Each structure stands twice: as C-alpha cells, then as structure tokens.
C-alpha cells in the first residue's frame, strides 16, 4: 500500500473489535494488518525482531507487536483490552483488541460496546468452536450488526476452496439465526499475508474483497442517527449578559441519538414538560441542527427546572420512564452479586440507587440456551429485573445502544461491577 496523506477533513472513523484467541492467529492478524498498512514503525519492528531472536525464532513474530504489559510478555497471554490505531487513505481505524479466553468475557463486552463491526477469527482446520459461538453471541448481544468472518490459516489446508466453503457454511448454519445484517467471510493466511492487505497469489479462486477492502467499505453503523432524539443533560450553566434581565440557562451535553433542530418540539424528562429548542450552540458558533455524537449546548424557549441527569427528548417519540424494567446484565466483578450491598446504576448522565429484584435466567452463551440461576458471578450474562429509586428514561438496547445501556457501581468500593442492557419487559 502506498504511503499517503489522509485527507483529514473527509475521513470516516471505523471502530472494530477482533475476537479470537492467540491459537487462531489473532495477534498475528493484527500485527499483519498494522505491518502491511504501514502502521508499524522501524523502532517497534527493531524491538520485536530482537525479542524474536532472543526467543530463538527464525522470523520476526508479528504477534509480539500486540503484547502490552510486562506480565503479558512474561506469560505469553493477553490480559486486557488494548486499543490500536491505523489509517488508510479512506478511513481511520480503532481496533479493540480483546483476549479470547472464556474468563475474559468481560473484556469482550468492553471492546464490543463501542465497536461498529466485529472480526470473528477462526482456524480453518478447527471449524466452529465453542469460543466462536461465544464470541459471535456476545457481539450480537452488544448490538453489533455486521461481522467479518476471518477464516485464517488457509496455508495449513493448501488454500483449499472446498474447506473454506465448508467452514463458512458451518458458521452460517449457526449464525443466521442471530439476526446479523451482514456476514462477510474472507479466507486468509495472516502468517503469510494472503488476503489481509495484499491479495497474494495462493487463492486465485477467491474473487471477493481482501480484509482491508472490507474494512474500508463496510458501512459505519448509522442506525443511531435515525433513532429518536435523546439528550442527557451533563451540566447546566447559568449566564447573564450585561443588560439582560434574566439569566439564561445553558444545557450542556452530547446528542446520544437522532438529531435535533432549532424549533423542534421536545419533552423534558422526568418532569414531562413540553417546550421547544431555542438554540443549539458550540464554541465555533450557533448551529441550526445537531446529530448523534455531537457535543453541544442547548437552550429552551421556556424556563424549565433542569439538572444533570434529566433528559431532553423528541416529544413525538419519548423514551420509557420507568422505575422497574428488564435487562440483560453481564457481571464483571470478581465478587458475586450480593443483594445486601448498596448498588448505584448509571444510565447516561443519571446516577440512581438500584436493586436487582429478580434473576430470571442465565444465558448459556456456548449452547444458546437459558438455564435457571440463583447467583451472578464474573462473566455471567443473566436476565434480571432491575428496580431503581428514581425513574430513569430508557429505550431498549436493541433499538438504541446509548440510551439502552447502563453500568452498576458498588457504592462502597466504587468499582464498576456490571454492564446492563435494557430489554423488552
């Protein structure tokens, strides 16, 4: 690939997660992606070449590029989510590189929570494994609708088309039921570089895109732009210009979904007051409208008593305002759920006292079945009934990721102990 100067004003940002284990060649794949797209620097290459030699390897091990922490280098494992960056002339990419082992479901949840697309990595010799099912399930649960199936280690099956087709088919048989918008399969050898950035010469039978072509062309998830307008208020500023009789109240925050224009009819929740948007301001000047992802300052045409945690929303499609709702919870803490502990729930900019009122079932993610449960331990995904002390303004996660998600904090330790997704009651 040519070196380039990204046309900064027009490049899009795509965030993706890579799911798989070291055994599938995940570190090698990421190393290859970074190396062939020229995101690896000479000094980094020199450092890993030296390490490879010290370990008695004949070639430079690209997988070493993704080792972050001392303990990881010592143990040859990945402990935590790492974020990596590269760009092509078309796009800027952020990779959430997550460990694949079972005990690290919580890291996958973390990485998937902000991703537009997931790469599911498979060893072509092994076909669909338990971990493949688990990874695919988790990314779907976390609201990712497009996946790239990277069928790796094609060099070890003589780049055979039949074997690729079989594994692809086996995957579709199980994944079609999960309701993805798009599943794109690419055969590759991350070790040798075929079909990652360069096509190579070993698979003339494959006419589809290389991995990098897919990453450059796959749609950035824009569903959130078309969802109803939601604006959780982060901060309230009061300003009074000289000569003005009344102070103006500025509501600072980020448009989490949909879009808003000056003059739009909105409802302020939980008060339920109807009003209209008087202005949308930024440091760079006033806007006529703003869209999901933009941090702005809103003023309203009526004086309403609003504080942090309140929400300004589309009047015609308001969120549900609830004190009790169903959710899927991924438990992240080493310590099991203890119902006697005081828990806080953070949703958007709102923090309220919360209780897990009932455990409905545990999701057995490896076999896609529900099993009864009376406890919630690390990495468990459990359907629960949540009760909160103050009503919160929620949407279902499936239709609105930012407004359907929450975290649970242990009030005593301040630890983030769970991630939650609002579902149909």
């Amino acid at each position, binding site marked *: 690939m040519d070196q380039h100067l990204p046309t900064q004003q027009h490049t899009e940002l795509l965030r993706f997660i890579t799911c798989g284990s070291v055994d599938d060649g995940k570190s090698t794949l990421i190393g290859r992606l970074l190396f062939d797209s020229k995101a690896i620097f000479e000094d980094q290459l020199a450092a890993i070449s030296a390490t490879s030699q010290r370990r008695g390897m004949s070639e430079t091990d690209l997988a070493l590029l993704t080792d972050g922490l001392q*303990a990881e280098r010592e143990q040859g494992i990945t402990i*935590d989510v790492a974020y990596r960056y590269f760009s092509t002339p078309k796009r800027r990419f952020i990779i959430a590189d997550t460990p694949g082992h079972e005990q690290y479901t919580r890291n996958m949840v973390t990485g998937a*929570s902000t991703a537009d697309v997931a790469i599911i990595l498979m060893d072509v010799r092994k076909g669909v494994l338990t971990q493949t099912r688990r990874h695919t399930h988790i990314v779907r649960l976390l609201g990712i609708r497009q996946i790239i199936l990277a069928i790796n280690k094609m060099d070890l099956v003589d780049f055979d088309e039949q074997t690729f087709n079989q594994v692809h088919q086996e995957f579709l048989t199980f994944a079609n039921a999960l309701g993805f918008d798009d599943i794109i399969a690419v055969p590759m050898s991350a070790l040798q570089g075929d079909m990652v950035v360069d096509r190579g010469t070993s698979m003339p039978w494959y006419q589809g895109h290389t991995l990098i072509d897919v990453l450059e062309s796959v749609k950035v998830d824009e569903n959130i732009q078309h969802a109803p307008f939601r604006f959780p208020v982060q901060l309230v500023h009061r300003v009074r210009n000289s000569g003005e009789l009344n102070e103006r109240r500025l509501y600072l925050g980020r448009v989490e979904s949909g879009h808003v224009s000056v003059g739009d009819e909105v409802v302020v929740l939980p008060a339920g007051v109807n009003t209209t948007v008087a202005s949308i301001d930024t440091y760079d000047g006033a806007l006529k409208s703003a869209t999901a992802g933009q941090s702005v300052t809103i003023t309203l045409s009526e004086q309403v008593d609003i504080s942090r945690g309140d929400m300004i929303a589309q009047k015609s499609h308001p969120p549900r305002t609830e004190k009790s709702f169903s959710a899927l919870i991924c438990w992240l803490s080493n310590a099991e759920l203890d119902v006697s502990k005081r828990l806080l729930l953070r949703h958007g900019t709102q923090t309220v006292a919360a209780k897990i009122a009932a455990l409905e079932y545990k999701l057995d993610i490896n076999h896609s079945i529900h099993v009864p449960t009376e406890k919630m331990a690390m990495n468990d995904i459990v359907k629960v009934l949540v009760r909160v002390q103050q009503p919160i303004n929620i949407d279902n996660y499936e239709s609105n990721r930012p407004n359907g998600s929450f975290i649970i904090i242990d009030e005593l330790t301040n630890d983030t102990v769970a991630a939650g997704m609002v579902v149909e009651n």
Partner: protein
Amino acid sequence: MSALNHLDRLESEAIHIMREVAAQSKNPALLFSGGKDSIVLLRLAEKAFRPLAFPFPLVHIDTGHNFAEVIAFRDRRVSELKEKLIVRRVEDTIKQGRARVKSENDSRNALQAITLVDTINEFQFDACIGGARRDEEKARAKERIFSFRDEFGAWDPKNQRPEIWSLYNARVHPGENMRVFPISNWTELDVWSYIARERLAVPEIYYAHKRPVVRRGIQLVPVTELTPPRPEEVVEELWVRFRTVGDITCTCPVASEAKDVEAIIAETAVTSVTERGATRMDDQTSEASMELRKKQGYF
C-alpha cells in the same frame, strides 16, 4: 445527514469526557506543560466550557530542565485564557530530600511522578486531566480513559475498572484520584491535524530550526548546558524540530525542514519511527519503562 468526520468525532468525545470530569469530580485539575498535546487539551476545554471559566486550575509539574521557549509559551497561553496556573517544581522535591538525583544532569522525568503525587495530595485533587494518548506507547494502549490511581498514586494494570460504552465512573475515596485522558484515541497525526484545523499556536521549537546536536544511536541529542557532548562525539549544526517536548535532558529532536504545520503533517503521515522512539531517551531503557513509571504514579 452526513456523519461526522473522524476529527469531529474525536473532538466531541473529548468534550464529553471533560464535561464528565466537571460533573463527577469535586476538585479536578488539568495538567498543562506547554507541549502540543496539552495545548490541544486547552482548546478542548474552551470548547467544553466557554463562555464560563474552566472548572479546574491548570497545573504544571516543572522539571526545571526546560526549553525556555516552552515556559514563555506556557505563561503567554495561560494569561490569554485568563485561567489559573499552579506550578510545582521537581527542584523543590529534590531540596526537600524526597527525590534523589545522581547528578544535576540526570533526567527528571521519573522524578516528576513524586512531585505530581505530592501536588495532588497538597490540593486534594480527585481528578487530573492529562494529554496522554494510547498510540504513544504499549502500556498506554491498555490504559482506560478514566484511569484509577490508589492512595499511592499507583496504576494497577491488571486491576483496572471496566470501561463500557461511554459510561465513565470517576468515583474515588478520599486520597485516591483519577487520571483522565480525553485524547486517548487520538494519534500524533490527529493532534497535528487538529492544531492545523484550529490554527493553534505551539512553541517555536516544534518547527524546523538550526540547532547544535550530536548523533547517539538513532537519536539526535541536542547540545545544551545540561546535555554536553561526550568527548568522542562530533557536534553538528542541523535542521531539526521536536516531536515531543519534555525534560531537556531526555528529549531529542528529529531531522526536519518542516517549518509550518502543513509540512509537519506531511512528515508525520509518512514517518517511520514512533514519536517516543525518536525522541525519548527514557523510554529506550527497557520494554517496560513506561509501565514501571506509571505504576509509580507517573501520568
């Protein structure tokens, strides 16, 4: 409706993070050194909070080994913004006997951590906003945007709080603090592109200038009072610029004729050496240098 371009998305994310600090933390501060990353932080703070004053003071942990232009720039920028600057000096920490140096010319980058932790304790800051980026270094690649530090200021990489969606948890007990990195997801190229887009002033030493240097490994070491040439070394007068600005004893320039921000962007897009690899002697000592410093309280 067109989607936001990538710089807009990064900017908006950073503004959101700064506002969360203002809302969640009782007594935050913003670390400002006069370097390019913290210059970007100040513009982001203006975008997050103007027309009001910043809800935090600016803090500089001064190693005493400075480039004079950078300190002059720092003071000019602070007075333009009419914000409050707190300066605490590594020199004073050494005088108090709380940090030891082998010689006057040793790098004080690592000692900064002690002065920083002391300053956090002195003012009881519960959050410090810093300009670190994940693309800088492999330990940083694994750090959270809201990074928890215990009462000793230490980072525990194996026991980080999960950070999911953009729901940040800044809660701490008294004595503990958060380090918050709003430009975690920016690269060096993004920073320069943003400086260009926002027409931000940066200290002159970021632009190409002639300077006496010696060659040491892959690095060019500036010849200064604190970093004299070794007997066998040949001093050359070269066109150079600095990619990072830190302690003068361990910050190296790169050969460059880039005299304006567009030229720097063009060079950054095709550079073959990482920012810290080319410019920081203290990151070259072992593969885990940064990780160890962070465990000791470095930002």
